[in-house]
């Protein structure tokens, strides 16, 4: 397998290319490859039911990655690998890894399309701002208490001592992210799950590294996020994270989003890029599991019809053709806010597609745009994510397609004017840390609705 050091060498000695030329080349190639491999997006079919197109999509992704490579935005060089090196990297990836500790340890395994392997669910209000330690502790303790969740994503306390601003790339970022993860660890312990997976990712590598501490912070049994920049790019700050994780013995979880309407162009192009970029995460970032995703350049939700097809088919392609551990998490960032039926519909659609296509869901819960609004979420959205993912295990594609079609009808026309929802304070009883009756009723209504549709919710 091509070593990490060899990858670094290529990032310094590979072909020097202008970023714009790389971007435009990506567009040209994705448009060519969709014709060559007969990749078609059909607006009437959110899921590819027979998988034959997914197999062609995998081949197109391979060809794109070998042709295009990964662009290093720090050095303006293209990191390329040979076909043999690419397949060696895929082969070298484990089919399963263990995460967490003690009674909270879980196995994250390669999942098949329609597979019955348990998906790992890392919930929590991902990377969102919190008003104070007490509130953060309370919300995360509530999230961790649900047994259908395997791990928790952290957020950020916006002010140090309620007064000093946290600014990325400055000492305040290191101090506060470290503080945040300590609160997170205390919260999961208080929920009776001290070995639970805890994840957080700061804007800079130095602050992310500062969160690792076996006693009070992130541990080797958690994972390190190493993000690929959209589209098919990497910066040294990301590779610094990989370098630390490799040296420290932490599993690397890669993430990348292709962009519908971006340099991938149409949904077909974005699907090819989603596959190719995933291969880049394995080869360049040295990820042992990774998120294969997409965003829409125009709509602030991750579960538009196009996104469900792009991410779903890309995950399907990877899982049919490899034994890699794929994370989908399509339902992590709905347009609607917490406390609304639309949030639950959007979240369910994405997580059903992820799970049925053979992915795990490890990117938490959060409205797509939270801004600086603090405490913008509750443990109930985490429970929903966990319940839906576990209930969709073993579901066949046709059933998933039918349920997702129903859900799309519910929210599709409200994505650009989605309801904002409410913060924790308006949705939960602060003393008991339980949902207020109106929110619980809304949750139960949607749960009943989906059970009647055939989702095996407990």
């Amino acid at each position, binding site marked *: 397998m091509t070593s990490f050091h060899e990858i670094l060498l290529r990032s310094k000695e590979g072909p020097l290319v202008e970023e714009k030329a790389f971007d*435009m080349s990506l567009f040209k190639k994705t448009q060519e490859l969709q014709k060559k491999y007969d990749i078609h997006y059909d607006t009437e079919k959110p899921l590819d039911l027979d998988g034959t197109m997914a197999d062609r999509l995998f081949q197109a992704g391979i060809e794109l990655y070998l042709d295009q490579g990964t662009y290093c935005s720090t050095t303006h060089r293209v990191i390329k690998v040979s076909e043999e090196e690419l397949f060696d990297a895929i082969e070298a990836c484990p089919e399963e890894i263990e995460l967490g500790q003690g009674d909270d340890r879980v196995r994250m395994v390669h999942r098949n399309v329609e597979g019955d392997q348990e998906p790992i669910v890392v919930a929590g209000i991902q990377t969102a701002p919190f008003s104070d330690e007490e509130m953060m502790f309370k919300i995360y303790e509530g999230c961790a208490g649900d047994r259908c969740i395997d791990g928790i994503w952290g957020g950020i306390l916006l002010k140090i001592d309620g007064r000093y601003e946290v600014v990325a*790339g400055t000492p305040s970022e290191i101090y506060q992210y470290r503080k945040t993860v300590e609160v997170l660890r205390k919260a999961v312990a208080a929920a009776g799950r001290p070995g639970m997976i805890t994840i957080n990712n700061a804007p800079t590598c130095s602050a992310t590294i500062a969160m690792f501490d076996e006693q009070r912070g992130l541990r080797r049994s958690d994972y390190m996020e190493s993000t690929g*920049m959209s589209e098919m790019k990497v910066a040294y700050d990301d590779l610094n994270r990989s370098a630390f994780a490799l040296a420290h013995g932490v599993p690397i979880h890669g993430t990348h989003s292709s962009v519908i309407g*971006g340099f991938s162009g149409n949904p077909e192009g974005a699907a090819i890029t989603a596959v190719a970029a995933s291969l880049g995460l394995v080869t360049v970032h040295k990820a042992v599991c990774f998120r294969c995703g997409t965003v829409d350049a125009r709509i602030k939700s991750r579960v538009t019809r196009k996104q469900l097809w792009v991410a779903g088919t890309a995950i399907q392609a990877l899982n049919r053709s490899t034994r890699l551990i794929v994370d989908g998490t399509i339902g992590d960032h709905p347009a609607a806010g917490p406390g609304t039926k639309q949030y639950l519909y959007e979240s369910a659609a994405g997580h059903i597609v992820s799970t049925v296509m053979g992915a795990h869901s490890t990117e938490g819960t959060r409205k797509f745009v939270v801004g600086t609004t603090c405490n913008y979420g509750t443990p109930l959205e985490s429970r929903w994510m966990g319940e839906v993912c576990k209930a969709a295990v073993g579901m066949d594609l046709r059933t998933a397609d039918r349920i997702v079609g129903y859900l799309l009808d519910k929210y599709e026309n409200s994505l650009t004017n989605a309801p904002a929802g409410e913060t924790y304070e308006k949705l939960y009883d602060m003393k008991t840390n339980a949902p207020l009756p109106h929110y619980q009723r809304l949750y139960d209504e949607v749960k009943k609705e989906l059970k009647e549709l055939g989702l095996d919710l407990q």
Partner: protein
Amino acid sequence: MSRSQESEQLLADLKQAILDYAEDQAEEITRKIIEAKIDPLQVMNQTIADASRELGDKFESGEIFLPHLVMAGDAMARVSELLESTLETGSIEQMGVKTIVIGTVQSDVHSIGKDIVAMLLKANGFKTVDLGVDVPCEDFVRQAKTQAADVIALSSLLTTTMPFQREVIQILEAMEERGNYKVLVGGGPVTGGWAEEIRADGYGKDAVEAVETAKRLTGVQS
């Protein structure tokens, strides 16, 4: 064909060449436009403005994508360059071309949203200087001065990098340059309230609104 009809045909052909992303063809037609002594202001304010609007609408409806904006932007930049070369020094102001320095702030490497805004601005006739991502605050100010910019546009996708938008404004104030530039802010976590708090001149909740705000701030007709 009368002279007036010939002129109209040339302008229509130019618009179509831009909409076809045909940079070479746009250049060739522009040379004919210059030979025909058609007013460059008319070309900029009508033909290119019309093409820009159409491109913006097509992008918004999902009919075309970011690469198309790049190609159309390149064609329009070439046309503008040729038209400018026919004018005397300093006459660029007469053409109403406004300059925007744009980038993603320090410690933030998110590029796609900023790229889309930059391309839409270019497609709407702005001279757009894209500084890239992770841009130090001082570089925005330095480049704005060098480029004689009208607007500084600051993108931030993280709550912890939003303070750098304020820092650029504070540097401008400290240098007593604040009045020389309009400051436009945007990005995922950025809100109108934040823009007001840091005394920015404008805010765009998405790419289309950012362009509309830039036009309003610079007095460019929509």
